[in-house]
């Protein structure tokens, strides 16, 4: 990390504080400048290094913020896992010759998921109601949960569903009656 020491350049005056304030640009001639930490605070560091290589915001100072490497690595892992690992589940449809796999994480909710399934398998899901499940369709989306039970997709909140769903199965409407109760 190269810290700029000479801060008295006229061209790029280092000012600390909110952009609106012009009372005093605090004398910081002895202090080492920081790379641009936070756009909002109006800090603009004089940089000798290439502007193209440095990202416009959020440069990192070594060892700051002061949190243990172990903790930092843990959070990074969680973030990366959350961002990159998919939640792939198999999808089968009665009568289809082979199964498909989809990543549940890419969908924001049931409507998107069902649209994707409809496109994939060329069927229509039908209208959902709590009492009756899916009406007006030959096919019904179901899933196997962590206990191994086959459940009607759509009853529980989305977050809960994607955590519980092990695989999806699109069943013929005639078989699907009786689904929707737990235990």
């Amino acid at each position: 990390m190269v810290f700029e020491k000479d801060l008295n350049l006229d061209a790029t005056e280092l000012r600390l504080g909110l952009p609106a304030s012009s009372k005093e640009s605090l004398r910081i001639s002895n202090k080492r400048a920081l790379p641009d930490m936070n756009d909002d605070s109006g800090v603009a560091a004089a940089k000798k290094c290439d502007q193209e290589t440095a990202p416009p915001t959020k440069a990192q100072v070594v060892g700051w913020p002061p949190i243990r490497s172990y903790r930092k690595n843990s959070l990074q892992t969680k973030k990366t896992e959350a961002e990159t690992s998919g939640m792939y589940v198999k999808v089968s449809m009665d009568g289809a010759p082979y199964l498909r796999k989809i990543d549940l994480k890419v969908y924001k909710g049931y409507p998107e998921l069902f649209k994707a399934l409809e496109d994939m398998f060329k069927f229509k899901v039908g209208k959902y109601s709590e009492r009756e499940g899916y009406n007006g369709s030959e096919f019904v989306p179901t899933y196997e949960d962590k206990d191994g039970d086959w459940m009607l997709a759509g009853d529980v909140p989305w977050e809960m569903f994607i955590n519980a769903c092990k695989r999806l199965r699109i069943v013929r409407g005639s078989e699907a009656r009786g689904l929707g109760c737990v235990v």
Partner: protein
Amino acid sequence: MNYFPDEVLEHVFDFITSHKDRNSVSLVCKSWYKIERYSRQRVFIGNCYSISPERLIARFPGLKSLTLKGKPHFADFNLVPHDWGGFVYPWIEALAKSRIGLEELRLKRMVVSDESLELLSKSFVNFKSLVLVSCEGFTTDGLAAIAANCRFLRELDLQENEVDDHRGHWLSCFPESCTSLISLNFACLRGEVNLGALERLVSRSPNLKSLRLNRAVPLDTLQKLLMRAPQLVDLGIGSYVHDPFSEAYNKLKIAIQRCKSIRSLSGFLEVAPHCMSAIYPICGNLTFLNLSYAPGLHGNKLMKLIQHCRKLQRLWILDCIGDKGLGVVALTCKELQELRVFPSDPFEAGNAAVTEEGLVLVSAGCPKLNSLLYFCQQMTNAALITVAKNCPNFIRFRLCILDPIKPDPVTNQPLDEGFGAIVQSCKGLKRLSLSGLLTDQVFLYIGMYAEQLEMLSIAFAADSDKGMLYVLNGCKKLRKLEIRDCPFGDAALLEDVGKYETMRSLWMSSCEVTLGGCKSVAEKMPSLNVEIIDESEQMEFNLDDKQKVDKMYLYRTLVGHRKDAPEYVWIL
């Protein structure tokens, strides 16, 4: 002085347990020194390079418990290269050769190899307790040796270590005859564990009081473990992801309700936030709650959980709790003594969810607050002054504003007055970490008021040498001073070199001290090791005394230069 026979004095000394007090006792006279040293069982060494294992063994032949700390504190933040030092092997080797009956070893920031763990496990018949905090250098193979060979093991406590996980069978290495476990903490291991072996181990450990699991332990195993160990006092949950309508969840609810002794809860390394209601039955008794590794838990679910924890004394949380959540803490946790708020997104400085408002709320609602670690987006002088008024009992006050030179956003002033209020009000303050825009003025206040201060951490602060001088002159009880990126130079460093002998250590990095200045300290004070850490190899080619030193670490020692320093460390 010696009206009593030695045995009586020894019996009296048995009641003196604090290290400080025992050290004082040993200084009274030769006779007391002798009695004390033969009866001493527990020794704490804050810097492993300040003394040698041989001298330790010679002085305390009855040693049973040893605590050692290795690397300087800033090593936690990647400011110290990995192989700088702090190796435990020579200590274990020396103790093994001696007749010391070691029973407990507690290490912090040390390098621990599998060889040292294996040697440890084979050398001390009565070894009972191993606690490793922030250490590195070992794998699960070393743990397997401990499990297999320490027949009377009571405690294996691994806190935030970087462990090379070979996904082996270390848990299975505990023999069937091992039934003595009281505490098992492997939360920091990243790999799979043998769940069957874990269940059997817990089943045959009737004294197990503390169990902290890692992410690889799923919910159904947790439920089985809790059924077998309802006497647990401290629980660390690994994975907590499940469907709230499932059978497994119902079973878990029942199991948790049986655990009426749980006072400390941590982990939730993976969490489904809609399933926290199973935990509510035990929340009312909790004194310690650590959710600092559970970023999935926030918002209303988190607040609801906290509302059940009326007896909480220590809370470790992520900043996604927000100021609003801290308000809930303030209303609920009237017994709160320690609060730690960690950043959930350390590199996105703009997104931190707590500000000065949250801290003020907690200070108003929790009058017993005495220990704080607070990572926040911003802080104001007014808030700090209010906090100082509300909570005059702070012993530890560590504030970290994510933008380290940010001024008071309301007044645009440095935070000198705010921190000044803290040190003036909190007469018992022992540890202080500063951040935000700070001038020499704050150090004037610290020197004037912080009479009990033992440890001070400074970063990106001050205008001149005066800052450091105020501190060195004023804080008579200062033991550890660590400074980074401040304009302190040779004048400050050399003003009173004798002071450093009264302290454990001084760290200065990215300051203005020169090679010449450091050499001067080393010359005048042979009882100090003055280390220059320079990985860039600049030192090799340019030995100009006027050269600025990137990292300097000096510490008092009774045993001279250490022999295990790597190439890029120069001991002057």
